[in-house]
């Protein structure tokens, strides 16, 4: 126990300053206030892997590490689409995942937001469209925003989330 405690103290707080959403000077405090005003609670995100290589998943997972500490700014990942406000979808959407993705989308209560993550989610990426891949997420369900990169860095994903909230709350 003493080792655990002393390591916590030695590690200290690593959380970095939250990046601004591009093209906005909205301070993070205002953003949190906006989220709270509209939702009355944290923004809940449900992630759906619709056929990615799993690279994007690793960077989405990184958002929970102490450097990005996404829960610290009032955004959390939830286990059920029925609890979610926003879907983070990675792609390309495989034919075998099409139905699951559509059903997950339908299960999210309105109003809902969708962000396509990564080159493949945004435009099909290197896999493109073929007999087994439907390409971009936008070709299967409506999206609000997309973030490119292979895989996109956690900061880029966070910026996309902030920008999507910003454009909704503005």
């Amino acid at each position, binding site marked *: 126990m003493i080792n655990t405690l002393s390591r916590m103290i030695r590690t200290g707080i*690593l959380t970095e300053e939250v990046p601004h959403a591009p093209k906005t000077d909205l301070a993070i405090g205002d953003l949190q206030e906006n989220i709270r005003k509209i939702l009355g609670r944290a923004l809940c995100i449900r992630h759906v892997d619709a056929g990615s290589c799993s*690279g994007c998943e*690793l960077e989405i997972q990184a958002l929970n*590490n102490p450097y990005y500490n996404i829960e610290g700014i009032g955004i959390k*990942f939830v286990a059920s689409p029925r609890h979610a406000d926003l879907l983070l979808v990675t792609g390309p959407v495989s034919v075998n995942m099409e139905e*699951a993705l559509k059903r997950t989308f339908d299960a999210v209560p309105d109003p809902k937001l969708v962000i396509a993550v990564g080159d493949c989610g945004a435009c099909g990426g*290197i*896999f493109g469209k*073929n007999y087994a891949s439907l390409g971009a997420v936008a070709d299967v369900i409506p999206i609000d925003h997309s973030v490119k990169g292979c895989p996109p860095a956690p900061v880029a994903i966070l910026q996309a989330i902030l920008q999507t909230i910003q454009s909704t709350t503005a």
Partner: protein
Amino acid sequence: MTPEFKKGAKTLPSNLPCHHKRVGAVEWWETAKSARSAGGRLLALWGADDRDRDSRYRVYAAYLEADGIAVVGHEMEGGTKPTYPSLREFFPSALRMERAIFDLLGIKSMEPDHRGWVRHSGWPENTFPLRRDFYGNTQFAVVSKPYPFVQVEGDGVHEIPVGPVHAGTIEPGHFRFSVVGEKVLRLEERLGYKHKGIEKRFETMVQKEGHKLAARISGDSAVAYSWAYCTALEAITSTSCPPRSVQLRALALEHERLANHLGDLGALGNDAGFAFGLTQFSRMKEDLLRTNQAHFGARYLMDFVVPGGVESDLPNNAPRLLLDRYNMLETDVVSMRNTYDNHAGIQDRFRETGILAHETAWKLDAVGVAARASGIPHDLRTDFPCPPYDKMNVKVSTQTSGDVAARVAVRFDELIESLHICRALVAGLSDGDFRSAVPDAEPGLLGIGVIEAWRGPVLIALETGSNGSIRRCHPHDPSWQNWPLLEYAILGNLVPDFPLINKSFNLSYSGHDV
């Protein structure tokens, strides 16, 4: 390999000693039998449609044996119902590969289970996408059909369906548990959700671009796959890479191993209710990814390994900074191992949970971390060390208990060993170029690349086409062999322990579904 096999076999271009022989149906079955009795393991199984060339279909099996890889090719007349003898009797892991071969090529093994594996409802039953006369961009309307899971009957037995969308930031797959109370009687996996036609996509690419797709077969093993692809192409074209480039590849591969093991150890702590573990390990992983960004130019090294070498050289100040990073990381890992080992709550969850017995692992062709945790001491980096591992003397870590604790211990050992390798690589970096030119390959040549990724050996079988094109490329992930192990490791355990057991294997869905 038996002397009879070697007689009449020809060598194949590969980074490992590799022999190839074309055989008839009887010899196909007998080679499997003798490979099994000699302690060989099935490395991969794939098919090809060569009707355009000689009116035949082919099926290939790659066995890893004491003296190298034996690639056995069996050809079938291109009639309406090509069949071949199943390898399941000797190598149970072959069954799912045979089902996938049927889905994609319509070549049937003589096995009764022909439920679709990678074909769900996305394309019609008698359509086979990997055949030459199938146009890859054809799309079909999905007609959803239920999958006949094996039913478990009896008093109080009920089913729990899980997935394909899971509660967490992970990949999609379906698990069907048959349980009594909380105890798991049977688990049946259904995979293939991420099948996105990678093998067909390869056939539209040129040889010099294929490594980019290879790196995206399973994003967490990008370096291993792109290296396996490149080494197959380099073997076919007899290209020798500069020593510095193979050292940098190995450094990238070890960084990939470090990052994944760190991530897994954190997630395993978290699944055992120890969030502190996740915080600490995810911090270490992030530090390592930032180191990658600074020295290799990207957090995940998707495009680092290229045909002939690597994409970029290390910056001048890298060696000193890297050595500092390794020292810090080692101190942290040793300290966290101490914390995990002495934490009663964690040990209570880890020990005797999800046991994979040695006999089961051996029978089911286990590979990689899972195999080493059940007492199968195989690692290509020591069994067949290709440069730069031939100068490294890598220590293989094994455990015998086969439980979650064993798979955790193997990961801790491998972290420390990887750090030793990284230090040696950085300290002994050769001078000179980091990339050499690769000529276009002759058409119709088959080459094999095998690399020990963090999860186990990945294999790329590459067949060249004319004018620098790819005729056929089959990637094989170690998850093919290891997914069935999970169905055994969970037996008799509680449903709530499944996430922990699953994570302790941490298998790839994408690499398996391709």
